[in-house]
């Protein structure tokens, strides 16, 4: 069975669409929602569901394959690779830093003092850990990415 993937494309991110798709696949693997051996949507399904140029999906899948996250099985489709590693520490930090940078910019714009920013982040982290201790890592939402 192909799991339901909810890929969210953000046109404001300044990140090319194929990269956004790749990043979210990585988060799914990191969060345990996609497991080794899981089938992922075909290029056709994903392109139609997201209304994205198929070339872009091909590019994302090719890069994911090169990174060892997925593998194509002839005539059967694409699957999460058996030894798919979630994010490397460097990738994790890079992703985190991207969001942090955005936060820092916005906080500066609003002239929020840095200690307050840190307090807010700490509180948000605390809130997540208290009420969702047993849930998997929350992932991005919207647009159903295809199922068989």
């Amino acid at each position: 069975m192909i799991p339901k993937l909810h890929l969210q494309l953000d046109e404001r991110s300044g990140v090319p669409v194929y990269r956004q798709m790749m990043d979210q696949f990585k988060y799914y693997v990191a969060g345990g929602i996609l497991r080794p051996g899981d089938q992922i949507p075909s290029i056709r399904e994903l392109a139609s569901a997201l209304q994205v140029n198929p070339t872009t999906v091909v590019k994302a899948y090719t890069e994911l394959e090169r990174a060892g996250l997925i593998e194509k099985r002839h005539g059967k489709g694409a699957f999460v690779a058996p030894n798919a590693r979630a994010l490397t520490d460097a990738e994790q930090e890079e992703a985190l830093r991207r969001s942090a940078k955005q936060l820092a910019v916005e906080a500066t714009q609003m002239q929020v003092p840095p200690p307050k920013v840190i307090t807010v982040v700490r509180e948000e982290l605390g809130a997540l850990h208290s009420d969702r201790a047993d849930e998997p890592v929350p992932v991005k939402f919207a647009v159903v990415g295809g199922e068989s």
Partner: protein
Amino acid sequence: MPTDILAHGLTKTFRTGVVAVNGFDLRVERGTVYGLIGRNGAGKTTALKILMGLLRPDRGEAKVLGRPLWEADPAHRQKVAYVSQSQQVPEWMSLGELGRYASHFYSAWRPELLQEQARRWELPLHLPISKLSGGNQRLAALAVALATRPEVLLLDEPAAGLDPVARRELNVCLVDALLRDEGCTILLSTHLLGDLERLAIHVGIMDRGRILAEGSVEDWQRTMRRVQVVFDGEAPPADFAIPGAIRSQVLGPVVTALTRVDDDAQLDGVRQLRGARVHVFPLTLEELFVDWFGGPAAAPESGEEISGQPGRSVPQPPNQRVGNGG
């Protein structure tokens, strides 16, 4: 990849004296999607009509699948489909009749494609097209165009007048056309830049009859930024410029520029300036387009000089190619 759509030095002046297309160059490779954007009156419709062979240019060449369509034979022309901004299908016919009529002229015609599309879009097959809503008339024309299984699809603002659901359906159809075994080359003009971000491989900004700038969507998403530098004091230092700026505006001590940032380090020099704070924001295609034309406040009326605006906007050389073209 072969070039399916080619325009070189196209120029067209109407009898009214309006120069609609002026030195228009374009190259669209097989299997890609090219989005033509530009303000109203930029010449998009005229350029598409010339490519479709409905108008003859005064100068220049326009080839689709290797030949100018105004002198191509029917066998060649039927490989190309065009849906215009204005209605062209005979309104007194029903969609079903139109399908039977078209099937005589198109060897690649697939009746089941029209049926399926009509079902998906809930278009009645037996009512005269004039009885359909404006949006549905547009969808009917598109359904016919897609059922001819064109190798090249020219679309002039296909989504104008469509509700959000129909627009999504249209996008899905275009994806379907791209996914066909034979593939499809699509050139479309549109004001809906959010859709282009997902569908187009290349985008050209058209202004006063020519391509002002052209780039790959992926490259633009990665590199085009709005850079804002805020100086302490009342004004930026004399002759200050943001490296890589394409279009700049100064408001008091704040310099804002549409900037190509290939490497964040190109802004290090600015960051080291005394009393300068640098902010870098990603842009949607829509914001990029607005910034290119001087921002909402400074948006010029059509026909007015764009590059030589008064104030402190920085003039740019015309027809720059931005990006590596993928």
